[in-house]
C-alpha cells in the first residue's frame, strides 16, 4: 500500500497544476506579509484565501485526478491488490500531497511571519480542509461515471460549504431571532467544516469581535479545551465519514 500511495503522491506533486497551486499560494502569502505592516491583518487576508481557494482547488483537483486515473485504477485492480488498499492509497496520496503543497505554499510564510500558536492553528486548519475536501472529492467522483457530472457535484459541494451554507445560517438566524438560538447555531455550524475552521482560527486571531454579546457563548464552547477537542473530532469525522462511504461504494462497484 505504501508503494502505491508513494506513486500516487509523487505523481500528484509532479503534476503541473499542483506546482502552480503551490506557487500561487506562496506568491500570495509572501506578498501579503510583505505588503501589510501588521501581521494580524496579513493573516486575515490569508484566512480568506485559505477558506476559499484551498477547498476549491482540493475538491476539483482531486475529482479530476480520480477520473483521470481511472485506467491506472483498473490496471491495479487486475493485480492481486485489495480494492480497499487501492482506494486508501489513492486517498493518502491525494491528501498528503495537497497538504504538502499547502504547507510549502502558505504554511511556511505563515509560520515565519506570525505568532506561533495562531500560525500552527492556521496551518493545521489549512491541511484539515485540504484533506476533508479530498475526501469529499472521492465521494463525489465515486457517485457517477460521468466526469462532467462528478466535477459538477464537486463544485456544488464547494459552493454549498463556502457560500450557501452561511446564507442559510443567516436566514435561519433571522427567522428564529426571537428565540435563544446561540447554542443551536453552534451545533449547526458543526455541519460545515469551513465554518468550523474559520471560527477556530478567528478565536485565536481576532478575539475582540467574538468577545461581544454573543461572543461569550461561542468563546465558552470553542475557546475551551473541550470545545477545541470537539471541533477537531468533528473535523476528523468530516474526513472519515465521506471517505468510508466512498470506500464502501468503491468496494462494491462494478468497474
Amino acid at each position, binding site marked *: 500500500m505504501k508503494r502505491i500511495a508513494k506513486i500516487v503522491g509523487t505523481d500528484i506533486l509532479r503534476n503541473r497544476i499542483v506546482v502552480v497551486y503551490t506557487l500561487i499560494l506562496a506568491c500570495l502569502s509572501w506578498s501579503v506579509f510583505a505588503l501589510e505592516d*501588521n501581521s*494580524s*491583518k496579513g493573516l*486575515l487576508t490569508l*484566512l*480568506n484565501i485559505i*477558506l*476559499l481557494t484551498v477547498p476549491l482547488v482540493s475538491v476539483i483537483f482531486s475529482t479530476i485526478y480520480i477520473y483521470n486515473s481511472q485506467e491506472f485504477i483498473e490496471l491495479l485492480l487486475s493485480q492481486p491488490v485489495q480494492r480497499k488498499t487501492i482506494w486508501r492509497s489513492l486517498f493518502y496520496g491525494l491528501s498528503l500531497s495537497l497538504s504538502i503543497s499547502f504547507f510549502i505554499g502558505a504554511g511556511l510564510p505563515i509560520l515565519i511571519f506570525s505568532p506561533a500558536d495562531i500560525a500552527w492553528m492556521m496551518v493545521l486548519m489549512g491541511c484539515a480542509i485540504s484533506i476533508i475536501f479530498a475526501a469529499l472529492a472521492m465521494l463525489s467522483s465515486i457517485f457517477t461515471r460521468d466526469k462532467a457530472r462528478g466535477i459538477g457535484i464537486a463544485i456544488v459541494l464547494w459552493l454549498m460549504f*463556502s*457560500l450557501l451554507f*452561511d*446564507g442559510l*445560517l*443567516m436566514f435561519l*438566524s*433571522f427567522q428564529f*431571532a426571537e428565540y435563544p*438560538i*446561540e447554542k443551536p*447555531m*453552534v451545533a449547526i*455550524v458543526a455541519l460545515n467544516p469551513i*465554518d468550523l475552521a*474559520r*471560527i477556530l482560527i*478567528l478565536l485565536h486571531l*481576532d478575539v*475582540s*469581535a*467574538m*468577545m*461581544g*454579546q*454573543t*461572543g*461569550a457563548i*461561542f468563546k465558552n464552547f470553542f475557546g475551551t479545551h473541550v470545545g477545541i477537542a470537539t471541533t477537531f473530532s468533528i473535523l476528523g469525522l468530516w474526513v472519515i465519514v465521506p471517505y468510508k462511504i466512498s470506500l464502501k461504494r468503491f468496494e462494491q462497484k462494478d468497474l
Partner: protein
Amino acid sequence: MGKTFRISVNSRFYIFIPVLFCYIGFTRTFVVEKNKNIGSIKKALAMCKNGDTIIVMPGTYREGNLIIDKSIYFLGKDYPVLDGQKKFEIVSIKASKVVISGFKVQHSGYATLDDPGAIKVYDGRDVIISNNILEDNFFGIYIQYGRHCVIKNNRIVAFGIEEQHIGNGIHCWKSDSLQIIGNSVSGHRDGIYFEFVTNSLIWKNTSTKNIRYGLHFMFSNNDSYISNFFKNNGAGVAVMFTHKVKMINNVFEENWGDAAYGLMLKEISDSYISGNRFKKNTTGIYMEGTSRIIVEKNVFESNGWGMKIQASCMDNEIRSNNFIGNTFDISTNGDVVLNSFNGNYWDKYQGYDLDKNNIGDVPYHPLSLFSVIVEQNPPTMLLYRSFMITLLDKSEKIAPSLTPDNFLDKTPLMHSLNL
C-alpha cells in the same frame, strides 16, 4: 550685586519669623504612641482644639469609630494602622479644614443602611485626605456635602467579589469643587463614584479591576477628568445624565465582557472628549441619548466596536480620531444620521488621494452592513469573516442600500494622525 540680593532675602525672612512664632504659639502638637503619655487617638482627639496637630506613631490602633469634629492636622508616621475590626466606620470627619495623611486604614464595617467608610467626610469644607493606604474596606473614602476637598495620592485596595457586598473606592455625593488626584483604586464596586458632584477635577488616578465601573458619574455637571487610567474594570466607565463634562487624555483599556464599555455615555450633553485612548475594549465608546458632544483626537485601537452610536444621539461631532484595528469601527441601531464624522483616519478605508492633500477623495462609509446585521441579530456574529459576509459588505460599500447612505466621513484621512 549678589550681596545686595542676599540681604534683601534675609530681611524678608526676618519679617516672617515673628509671624511664624505667633502661629506656632497658638497651636499644640499631640503625639500618640502606645504605652506613652497619650496612648490612644481618642484621648488626643478629646484634648485637641482647632488648628492643633495630632501625630500618630506606628502601631495598630483598634479604637472603633474616630470622630474628628475639629479642624486639626491628623498625621500618621510610618503608616500607623487604624483597624475597624469589620465593625466600625473608622474615621468620621465632621468638621472643615481637616488634614488626614499617612495612615493605613483597614477593615471597616459593612452595613447597607449607613454605608460606613474607611474615611468619611460629613458636610466638610477644605478637607485634605492624602497619602493614605486603605485596605479591605466597605467604602474607601466617602464624601458627602463636601466642598473644596482634596483627595490625593491614596492607595485604595479591596477584595470584593460580589457587587452588593462591597462599596465604592472613592464615593462622592452632593459635593462641589473636589479634587481627586493621583489615587489608585482597585477591587471595589466602582473605583470612583460621583453623584451630584459639580465643578470637580479627577486627575491622574488609576482605577483597575473594580467589579462594576472604574469611574461612575451621575448628575455631575461641569467636571473634568484628565489623564486617568482605567483598565480591566467589570464594565468600564459610565458617565450618565450629565452635561459639560471634559474627558481628556484618559486611557481606557481591556474592559471585556457582555455589557462592558470603555466609556459609556448616557444622556450626556455639551461635553468634550479628547486625547483619550481606547484599546482592547469590547466597545470603545457607547453613546445613548447624547447630544452636542465633540469627540476628537482620540485613538480607538483593537476594540470589538470602536463606537456604538445609538439612534437617540444627535449633533455629536466625531472628528480627527484614529480608528485602527477595530473589528467594527462604528455601529448604530437606526437609520437616521444626526451626527457628523469629519477628518478621521480609518484603517479600513480603501479610497485614493489624487491631489496628495492627505484627504481621501472618496467618502468613507464607516458603517458596514455586517455591523448593522449583528446589531439587529447578535448570533449572526458567528458568520464574521465568512466569504458570504465579505461579499455582502463589499457590494454594500459600492451601493449602500440597507445602511444609511449619508452615514459617512467626507474627509477621511489617508494617514493616521500622530496621537
